[in-house]
């Protein structure tokens, strides 16, 4: 990109209001539940009470006879009319239908759906459905699922293993043999998720006249419409997804494909709009929105000085009953498999298994948060083993600032960074020496106190090549993003993006960059979300990518707008292009500024005066730009080395905790974080993302868990069981920025949506283990709920 690092920025990196906020504070946000169509009918779903059962019969007679009920649908009927939902990996015998067919595979799986006049009647009708189940033993433990040959979640598949891959980058055996020492440890990341406050909802309306299915959904998902079309068996251009719906939080999980298939199918059957808004219990148990659930067994080779030479990682991930894109969450971490450290070689064994639990979907960081937790646990383990300071061990292993671009063993080139500087900024902000004194004083007073130290890399803007790493028939080498920019006859600017937004402030991002590039006040630029039939190619706001990708597309489109204005001016003023300059929409002669063409004149010519357009130029005034992932586009080499993500943000986290030895309760009393995501487009948005991700990470570290009992029964259907942090659990976070611009992006920006969540779990675990260290105890399983810590302290059991 044509970034001029010395350029004076007017809007980018300046504190400005976030344009989306006005509609939210006044109650005017348009969430899917707020979309009202006449004659809409309401759906409710019947969950299975059993984790694994054969469906012997379903009697819907009484439900159908209830006043106000329009239809009751079961999986048997649906499977006749629909295809299974396409999975990320090619697993033809793992058939995923929106309603259970013949068998239920987790407690909470939907077995029937009712459509009625209102949601109250629909729920009444659910109670009248008679299902005869034959309960079967469930597969619950992932290690057992891996080894199991008799109890299979999908018998036709022949095993519970969805993916099993081996990767080797560098001379691992040689590095282990040459190293002074090595250690082995197990770390476990518990089953949690992002759990947005808005559940998933969808509203569909099939219009027989136009043969278009209109759908409004709280969606954040690449290829959503393609999946919907393939499941329903529709041509893609029969479906119009309305993307001007505000999404009430997602952080990866708002996938809702089965929900959307159901309302689409029912709307076409009944010829009325049908909506399904999950209630909370349905969402938690059967919304297919759980996150990674992962066991790491890691061997680390290192020198007596604490220099880490090599890693051997086995990751076993529990994808639940229907994997969707879950297995790919084992592949993304390949992009930063050594974290920010100069580790020489890595062996990586990745296993995804099916169990009788609700399905796993992408969660903030796409699998990187568990892996980063494991990497940081490895660094702490090495320090503890050698009796070295954790901070010093990190300093000895961090990639030095003069080494960029830095290639890691798995092929990623880290674009830029100054990890030592960012770590130092975090230490300064934490007042580290004082913090150590505070901890030590607390310890002398008999309290359990600990300081956490963790860093993390946040890959951003990926190209999706991780699919190929797991499935060499998936030759996908782009994950583009596009936009269109229109200048109207009044000279006003409208930017059209092609995705929904779920709190990331994309409208502000887009307007800020257009304003910067075209030199107009961003507040006067309109941003709209094109529906899926009108939108240019997009891959949705996932993977910390929109600042990089929509930012790149916006810069590209703005460049085309400027080029066009310059060409019109050159033609009309008879001045060579190189003698013209663009300033705030006016084009003038560098040598004689009185010779100029104003923005209004350029717009008039574009729309009205064809005779003043350069020969061959189309009338009108707009530009489209499709932005390819920087540095992407290649298949992996023979050693499976490849660039997956172009940009790498970096954070350092320093929390301080104290533990109540009686109850095991962890209080996070202080938290300093330094973050570097290159150029910040909007400071308030980035700060919110960083701190919000961090809070989410505290939840994953200490509280949040979807619990199943040994028989596979689901125990966390309410917010009172799942446990999310309130304001009382989140400390008064202090943050500081650092800026190492990316050389690959339009303004030096990188991703910022995930880093807080990638670093905080590792940092909190580090702090808790530091607090437990004087007792000779440690914990390596998240979440570290108080009951678990209390048992550890008072039973002394590891």
């Amino acid at each position, binding site marked *: 990109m044509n970034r001029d690092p010395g350029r004076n920025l007017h809007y980018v990196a300046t504190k400005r209001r976030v344009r989306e906020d006005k509609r939210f*504070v*006044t109650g005017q946000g348009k969430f899917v539940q707020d979309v009202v169509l006449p004659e809409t009918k309401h759906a409710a779903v019947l969950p299975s009470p059993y984790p694994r059962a054969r469906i012997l019969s379903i009697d819907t007679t009484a439900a159908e006879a209830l006043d106000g009920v329009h239809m009751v649908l079961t999986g048997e009927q649906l499977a006749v009319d629909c295809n299974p939902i396409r999975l990320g990996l090619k697993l033809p015998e793992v058939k995923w239908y929106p309603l259970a067919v013949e068998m239920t595979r987790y407690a909470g799986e939907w077995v029937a759906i009712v459509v009625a006049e209102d949601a109250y009647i629909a729920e009444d009708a659910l109670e009248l459905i008679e299902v005869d189940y034959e309960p079967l033993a469930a597969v619950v433990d992932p290690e057992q699922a891996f080894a199991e040959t008799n109890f299979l979640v999908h018998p036709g598949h022949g095993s519970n293993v969805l993916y099993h891959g081996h990767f080797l980058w560098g001379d691992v055996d040689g590095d282990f043999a040459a190293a002074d020492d090595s250690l082995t440890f197990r770390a476990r990341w518990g089953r949690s998720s992002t759990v947005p406050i808005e559940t998933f909802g969808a509203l569909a309306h099939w219009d027989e006249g136009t043969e278009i299915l209109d759908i409004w959904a709280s969606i954040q998902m690449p290829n959503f419409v393609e999946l919907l079309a393939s499941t329903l068996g529709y041509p893609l251009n029969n479906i119009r997804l309305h993307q001007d719906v505000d999404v009430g939080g997602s*952080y990866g999980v708002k996938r809702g494909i089965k929900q959307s298939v159901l309302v689409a199918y029912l709307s076409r059957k009944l010829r009325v709009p049908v909506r399904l808004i999950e209630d*909370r219990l349905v969402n938690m148990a059967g919304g297919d929105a759980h996150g990674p659930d992962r066991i790491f067994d890691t061997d680390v080779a290192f020198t007596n000085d604490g220099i880490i030479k090599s890693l051997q990682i086995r990751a076993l991930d529990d994808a639940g009953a229907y994997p969707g894109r879950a297995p790919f969450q084992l592949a993304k971490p390949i992009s930063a498999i050594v974290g920010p450290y100069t580790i020489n070689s890595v062996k990586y064994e990745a296993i995804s298994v099916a169990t009788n639990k609700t399905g796993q979907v992408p969660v903030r960081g796409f699998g990187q948060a568990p892996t980063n937790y494991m990497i940081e646990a490895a660094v702490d383990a090495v320090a503890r083993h050698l009796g070295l300071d954790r901070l010093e061990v990190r300093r000895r292993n961090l990639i030095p600032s003069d080494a960029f671009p830095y290639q890691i063993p798995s092929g990623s080139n880290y674009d830029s960074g100054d990890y030592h500087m960012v770590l130092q900024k975090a230490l300064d902000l934490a007042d580290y020496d004082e913090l150590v004194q505070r901890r030590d004083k607390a310890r002398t007073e008999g309290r359990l106190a600990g300081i956490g130290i963790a860093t993390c890399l946040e890959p951003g803007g990926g190209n999706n090549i991780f699919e190929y790493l797991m499935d060499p028939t998936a030759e996908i080498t782009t994950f583009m993003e596009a936009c269109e920019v229109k200048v109207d006859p009044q000279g006003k600017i409208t930017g059209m993006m092609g995705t929904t937004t779920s709190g990331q402030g994309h409208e502000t991002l887009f307007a800020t960059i257009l304003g910067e590039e075209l030199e107009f006040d961003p507040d006067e630029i309109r941003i709209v979300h094109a529906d899926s039939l009108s939108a240019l190619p997009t891959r949705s706001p996932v993977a910390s990518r929109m600042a990089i990708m929509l930012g790149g597309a916006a810069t590209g489109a703005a460049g085309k707008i400027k080029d066009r204005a310059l060409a019109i001016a050159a033609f009309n003023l008879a001045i060579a292009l190189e003698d013209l300059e663009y300033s705030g929409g006016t084009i003038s002669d560098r040598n004689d500024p009185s010779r100029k063409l104003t923005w209004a004149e350029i717009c008039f010519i574009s729309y009205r005066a064809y005779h003043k357009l350069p020969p061959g130029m189309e009338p009108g005034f707009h530009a489209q730009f499709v932005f390819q992932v920087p540095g992407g586009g290649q298949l992996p080499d023979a050693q499976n080395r490849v660039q997956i993500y172009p940009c790498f943000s970096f954070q350092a986290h320093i929390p301080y905790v104290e533990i109540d030895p009686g109850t095991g309760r962890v209080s996070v009393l202080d938290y300093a974080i330094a973050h570097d995501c290159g150029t910040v487009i909007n400071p308030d948005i980035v700060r919110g993302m960083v701190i919000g991700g961090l809070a989410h990470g505290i939840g994953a570290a200490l509280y949040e868990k979807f619990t199943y009992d040994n028989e596979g029964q689901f125990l966390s259907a*309410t917010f009172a069981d799942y446990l999310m942090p309130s*304001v009382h659990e*989140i400390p008064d976070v202090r943050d500081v920025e650092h800026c190492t611009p990316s050389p690959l992006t339009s303004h030096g920006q990188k991703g910022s949506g995930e880093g807080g969540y990638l670093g905080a779990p590792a940092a909190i675990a580090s702090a808790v283990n530091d607090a437990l260290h004087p007792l000779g105890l440690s914990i390596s399983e998240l979440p570290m709920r108080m009951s678990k810590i209390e048992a550890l302290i008072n039973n002394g059991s590891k």
Partner: protein
Amino acid sequence: MSRRGISLTINGKAYQREVEPRLSLLDFLRDEMRFSGTHVGCEHGVCGACSILFDSVPIRACLMLAVQADGHDVTTVEGLCDEDGAPGLLQTAFQDAHGMQCGYCTPGMLISAQALLAQNNDPSLEDIKDAIGGNICRCTGYVQIIESIQLAARRLREAEQ
């Protein structure tokens, strides 16, 4: 089910409606009255997304029936706007300090903050945390929400001087 007549005030305006006895106050406000700023989060009283002021006291609209609002005074997030519909002082402070991301918990947060500031225009950090302790936000980590309320309190004090 036989409908029951209720009379109540919403955002300063009197209404009379016939409702089913089992209709929740939340669904009544959203679906019948179209005050869609009040949001559905958990429907079991934990998350606070449906918070409204009920006779000036913040409550969960998901845990009440519409018939229980008969004769009472309700304020939703829409009622915090100025008369012309522009954001009021508290809402403007949330804009200026970006006290939100996806906007879904925001109306509930505003209601809880409004109830606090109506009693106390100089709240301590602990006062603020107590006031919004029953409102879950998954986006922000609360820091910018607290700053928004502090900003609103400061502006309120300045306006009252």
